[in-house]
C-alpha cells in the first residue's frame, strides 16, 4: 500500500514536527510513504475567501503530486475536507476523483484503514481534546452535539490507547475555536473571543495540553495562550500518538 503524505502548507512551514510525527506513525504501521516534494497547498484559503475560481493552479499541482498513490493522508481534517469537496480539474476528472475518494485525515486512516488497536504510545499528561469543526462535522470523525446519534470519536478511540494519557472534555464539547481561515483576521474580535472562551473551558479543567486534529485551530489557540503567558501548551494529535 502506497501512501502519499500531504502536508498542509502552514504545517510544512511552521510546524514540521507535526508532519514528522505523521510520517513516522504511518511508517511504523507498515505503510510505504512517499512525500511529493513539489506539493504546496490545497487551495482552501482562497476558496473559503470566495476565490475558488483562483485555485486551478493549486488543483493542478495537487493532482500532479498525488494522483499515483493508493491513499493520500494528511494531519488536517480541514484540508482533507477541502480536497474531498472541491478538488476538480476539467480534463483530469478520473485522477481528481481517485484523490477525492482516497484522501484521509490521519486519525481516520489509523482507525478505519489500518485498524490500529495498539499504538504503543505513551504520553502521561492531562490533555484537553479540541474538536475541530471540519473534521467533526465535515468528515464526521466524531459524533456531534447538534445531532441525535450514538456517541463516537475516532480521535478519542486512539487517545485511549496512549499510556498515561487522561482525556478531558471542554464544557461545550464541540464549539468552534474561531480560527476559520481568513476569518481570524477579518473578524479578529469575534475570532479572538471565541478562542479565549474555548481556552477558558480547558483551563478550568486544569489541562497541561490541548490537542486536536487541525494545527490551524491549535496555532490560533497557541497564539492566544502565549499572549496570556499561560503554561498550557498545544500539541497536534499525531505528535501524541507518535510519542514513545
Amino acid at each position, binding site marked *: 500500500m502506497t501512501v502519499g503524505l500531504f*502536508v498542509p*502548507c502552514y504545517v*510544512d*512551514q*511552521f*510546524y*514540521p514536527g507535526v*508532519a514528522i510525527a505523521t510520517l513516522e506513525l504511518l511508517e511504523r504501521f507498515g505503510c510505504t510513504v512517499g*512525500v511529493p*516534494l*513539489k506539493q*504546496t*497547498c490545497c*487551495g482552501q484559503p*482562497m*476558496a*473559503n475567501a*470566495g476565490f475558488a*475560481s*483562483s485555485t*486551478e*493552479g*493549486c488543483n493542478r*499541482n495537487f493532482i500532479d503530486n498525488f494522483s499515483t498513490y493508493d491513499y493520500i493522508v494528511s494531519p488536517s481534517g480541514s484540508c482533507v475536507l477541502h480536497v474531498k469537496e472541491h478538488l476538480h480539474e476539467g480534463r483530469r476528472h478520473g485522477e481528481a476523483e481517485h484523490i477525492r475518494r482516497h484522501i484521509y485525515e490521519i486519525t481516520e486512516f489509523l482507525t478505519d484503514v489500518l485498524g490500529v488497536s495498539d499504538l504503543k504510545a505513551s504520553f502521561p499528561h492531562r490533555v484537553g481534546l479540541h474538536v475541530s*469543526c*471540519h473534521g467533526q*462535522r*465535515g468528515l464526521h470523525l466524531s459524533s*456531534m452535539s*447538534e*445531532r*441525535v*446519534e450514538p456517541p463516537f470519536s475516532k480521535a478519542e478511540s486512539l487517545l485511549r490507547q496512549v499510556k498515561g494519557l487522561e482525556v478531558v472534555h471542554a464544557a*461545550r464539547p464541540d*464549539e*468552534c475555536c*474561531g*480560527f*476559520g*481561515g481568513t*476569518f*481570524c*483576521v*477579518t*473578524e*479578529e*474580535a*469575534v*475570532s*479572538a473571543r*471565541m*478562542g*479565549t*472562551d474555548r481556552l477558558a473551558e480547558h483551563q478550568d479543567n486544569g489541562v497541561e495540553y490541548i490537542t486536536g486534529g487541525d494545527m490551524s485551530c491549535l*496555532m*490560533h489557540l497557541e*497564539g*492566544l495562550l*502565549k*499572549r496570556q503567558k499561560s503554561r498550557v501548551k498545544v500539541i497536534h494529535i499525531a505528535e501524541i500518538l507518535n510519542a514513545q
Partner: protein
Amino acid sequence: MMPIVKEHSPAAEQFLQDAKRARWHDETLWFVRAKRDKAAHSLPGWEALREQASRIKAHTLSRLDDYLVEFETRAQENGVRVHWAVDGEEHNRIVHALLKANGVKAVVKSKSMLTEECGLNHYLRDKGIEVVDTDLGEYIVQLREEQPSHIVLPAIHLKKEEVSATFHQHLHTEKGNNDATYLTRAARKVLRDKFLSADAAITGVNFAVAQTGGIVVCTNEGNADMGVHAAKLHIASMGIEKIIPKASHLGVFLRLLARSATGQPITTYSSHFHRPAPGQQLHVVLVDNGRTRQLAREEFRNSLKCIRCGACFNTCPVYRRSGGHSYHNSVAGPIGSILAPNGDMRANADLPFASTLCGSCTHVCPVKINIHEQLWTWRQILMKEGLAPASKKIGIRLMAGVLSSPALYRMGGKMARWVLHVAPSMAKNRLNPWFKQREMPEAPKESFIEWYQKRGKNGK
C-alpha cells in the same frame, strides 16, 4: 425599517467591547441551545423527523405555484380574501388600503418577521396609523425604536435593567424596579387596552395549509389570538414559502418548531384560522419579495425551507458573540446571512463572511438547510460580482500565484520564516490583526520538506 448600514466585523467588535454583556448574551443563548438539545434527544426519531420535514419542504418548493393556487382556492371558499404582493412595497400598499377602507386608526400586530422585512410599521406610521407590536419582546424594541436582534427572542440583546428604564420612560413604571414580573404586568396592562381599542389585528403566518386554506400562527403569549378575537379585521401576512401541502404535515413541523426554537415540546398557542368569525374579515397577503428569485437560484433554493425557529442563531458561536444588530438585516444569524444577499448583494456582501463555516447551523436546522455550504457558495458569487475590496483581490491573486508554483512557494515560505527571525517587527505590529491578541507562531529553521530532503540524503 431603515437598517443601520454597517459592516458585521466592526459592529461585532463594538458589541464585544462590553465584555460582561457579551458573555451574558453568549451564555443565555447557549442555554437555549442546550434546552433544544435536551428536547431533541427526548423525542424518538428526531433525525427522521428532520429528514421528513426537509423532504416535505423540498417537494412543496418544487410545486410552489400549484400549492399556492390550491391554498388561494380553498381559502376563498372559506370566505378568506387572498391578496398577492410582488414585493414589500406592494404588501404595505395592500395592507394600508385594507386599513383605510375600514377606517382603521389603531392596529395591534403579533410577531411577523415578514412585516419587519417589508418595513410595515414605519410605512403605516407615516400614514398616520398607530401600530403596536404585542409580542412582549417586540413591544420592548418598538418602544426603543430598535429592530429585533433575534427572530424568536427579539429583545435578547437587552437586560432587564434596560427594559425597566424603557418602561419607566414610556409606561411610567417605577424607576429602577427591575423585577421581571412587575415589568411584564405593566406591559400587559398597557397591551390589554391596546387589544381592546384596536380596529384591526395583523398577524404573521407560521404555516399555511394548501389542502384546507387555513393558516397556523404560533405564539407563546397568546397575543395573536387576543388581537384577532377583539378586532373586526384580521390581516395575515405571509411569505409564499410558508405553504405546506396538507394539514397532517403540521404534525411534523409543529413538533420540530418549538423544540428547535426554545426546547419547548410545542408553542403555548398554535392557533388555526380557517375562516373569518361572523362579522369579521380575514385577509391573507401572500408576499414574494425576492423569494421566487431565491427559488430560481438552485444552490440557494433550500434556504426557503426555513421555518424561522432561530436554532441556527442560538448555536452560532459568531452570532452569540456579535449580537443580532451586527447583521444589519431583519433576519440576522446564519440563515439571515444566506437570505440577505438575495435581496441586496452589495449591502450584504459582508454577511456570508461572518462565519467560520463550522457547520453547526446546518446540523441543528430542523429542516436540514445546508446553511454553511450556502455561505461558502455566496462567498464565491459575491467575489465574482466584484464585491471584494481591491486589496483583497490583489492579495488573493498573489497567494494563488505563489501557491500554484512549488518553487515560489518554497522561496516564499523560506523568506517568511527568515523575516520572522531577523525582523519580527514586520509581523509583530498592531497593523497585523493576528498580532492584536495573539502571538505569532515560532518560525522553525527548516520546513518539513527541507528536513525530509536531508533525511533522504542521510540514507533515511
